[in-house]
């Protein structure tokens, strides 16, 4: 038949007509391979599924906001923290394993996952002190130059470990006098949040040991209006929202923290209606556009973990609300986690309390896609 087809191409159809009506050639044999990730794009998001009903099987799911494809999975063990390296090439997971799954010898560890192969390349075994709590940007964090990796400890005594992500070693442990988490700034500064509403900032020397420490003025009141520990990256530091909707922008570009004037998400009418931010990742900021997106709901004291029924968008310069997107109109459940990409055509990812992840045009609020059941409990989303 091949020769006939050949002749066909060169000569007349007539002689082959009956043969051409014959069935197509069989499908060729396939080869089993391992998929490689497509080239990176700015709309990728790393979604931590805490898998709360089976918490020893937490995982980080890599999802593509353009193709809506699940690109792969990174194991995250039990009650993990995670973060991305400044160059975006590595996902670090701080987690805990037990020799017999639910029990047996406890091993705390930081794992280094290659974001191009999604395989664990290295690990650092930690003292069994890793903070077991909700994931934030500050459970595990890199210095600006990736020289140091900081890991938060709570036993419940609070301290943090300084790790060397190049030599895969533990350099030091630094006591934080009750202040928690590791908010990185510059190549060698770590700030922790204190019950007094202050930031403790420890400066490290070349060896990753404490060189000096300083306590800031209080910037919030833990009794009157506590801030969420889920800080949101800004151009010069992090923004911390309070339970009652105040915005505390902290400038960490200097040797010591500086605090921008506090402003509120709420006007008198909003306050009267009881609007508040809430969730496990309450907000996201597009640095270049200077826009803040917050997950808002109506409720009273104790509702700070309630997901948002609306997403509000604010201009960080004017502090004015520029958009308000009711989620019921998009047929979305209450939203517990928000993240936005940093490119010029940004996508807002919104994870609902039913574990769906909505892909929203951050410029228009248009719903592009709903990825159903991206794990059991997607509580934190990160992107480079």
């Amino acid at each position: 038949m091949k020769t006939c087809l050949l002749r066909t191409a060169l000569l007349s159809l007539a002689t082959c007509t009956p043969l051409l009506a014959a069935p197509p050639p069989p499908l060729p044999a396939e080869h089993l391979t391992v998929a490689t990730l497509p080239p990176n794009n700015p709309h990728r998001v790393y979604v931590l599924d805490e898998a709360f009903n089976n918490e020893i099987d937490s995982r980080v799911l890599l999802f593509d906001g353009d193709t809506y494809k699940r690109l792969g999975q990174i194991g995250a063990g039990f009650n993990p923290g995670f973060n991305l390296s400044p160059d975006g090439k590595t996902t670090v997971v701080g987690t805990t394993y037990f020799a017999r799954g639910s029990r047996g010898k406890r091993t705390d560890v930081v794992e280094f996952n290659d974001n191009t192969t999604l395989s664990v390349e290295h690990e650092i075994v930690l003292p069994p002190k890793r903070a077991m709590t909700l994931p934030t940007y500050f459970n595990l964090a890199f210095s600006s130059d990736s020289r140091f990796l900081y890991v938060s400890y709570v036993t419940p005594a609070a301290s943090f470990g300084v790790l060397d992500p190049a030599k895969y070693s533990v350099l030091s442990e630094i006591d934080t006098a009750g202040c928690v988490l590791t908010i990185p700034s510059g190549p060698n500064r770590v700030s922790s949040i204190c019950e007094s509403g202050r930031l403790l900032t420890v400066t490290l020397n070349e060896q990753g040991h404490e060189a000096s420490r300083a306590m800031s003025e209080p910037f919030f009141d833990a009794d009157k209006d506590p801030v969420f520990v889920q800080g949101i990256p800004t151009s010069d530091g992090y923004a911390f929202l309070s339970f009652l909707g105040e915005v505390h922008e902290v400038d960490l570009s200097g040797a010591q923290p500086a605090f921008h004037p506090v402003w509120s998400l709420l006007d008198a009418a909003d306050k009267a209606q009881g609007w508040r931010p809430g969730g496990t990742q309450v907000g996201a900021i597009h640095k270049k556009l200077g826009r803040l997106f917050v997950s808002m709901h109506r409720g009273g004291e104790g509702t700070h973990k309630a997901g948002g029924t609306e997403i509000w968008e604010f201009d960080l310069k004017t502090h004015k609300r520029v958009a308000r997107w009711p989620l019921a109109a998009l047929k979305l459940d209450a939203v517990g986690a928000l993240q936005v990409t940093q490119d010029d055509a940004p996508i807002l990812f919104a994870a609902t309390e039913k574990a769906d992840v909505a892909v929203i045009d951050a410029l228009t609020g248009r719903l592009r896609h709903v990825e159903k059941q991206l794990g059991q409990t997607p509580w934190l989303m990160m992107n480079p």
Partner: protein
Amino acid sequence: MRSLDKLFENSSRSLARHTSRRSVLATLGQILTGAALVPLLPVDRSSRAQAAEPKGAAKGQSDDPKSCEYWKYCAVDGFLCSCCGGSSNSCPPGTRPSPITWIGTCHNPADQRDYIVSYNDCCGKTSCGNCECNRNEREKPMYRPSRNNDLNWCMASGDNSNYHCSVSVILGLSESAK
């Protein structure tokens, strides 16, 4: 301070059964911090319903220790041990009570009193996965650990640090109930 003395006595007694001397001291430390912070405000009913609502719990009060709306659970974020083989103040068979804990205040509508309760986690088995409850009345972020329910309070249980479920144990009357 009468009730506070009482509080320490009860908590140390109840915890001593299950914990080393070291961890009892740790516990008292936790409770001391917590007790000093018990607010004098009355409990905000409306907020409770709101808090539970998004997690699908029934609104209003409940006498059922298997319900997230049971009065003692006003700041439980986790699985109710009463749905896992335990009760509102006992861990399921084969699990271990966390030696450390945090405390809160819950209002009992039956006698209109505020009680100080100890929130303990039960440890050493994987997630119970039943009766998830997420209430956070007067719960604070982790920089105030003595009032925080995000921390895995099995953290100090070594090889048994796995989180299984949560209980709420009456320690005594709150100051505001005097």
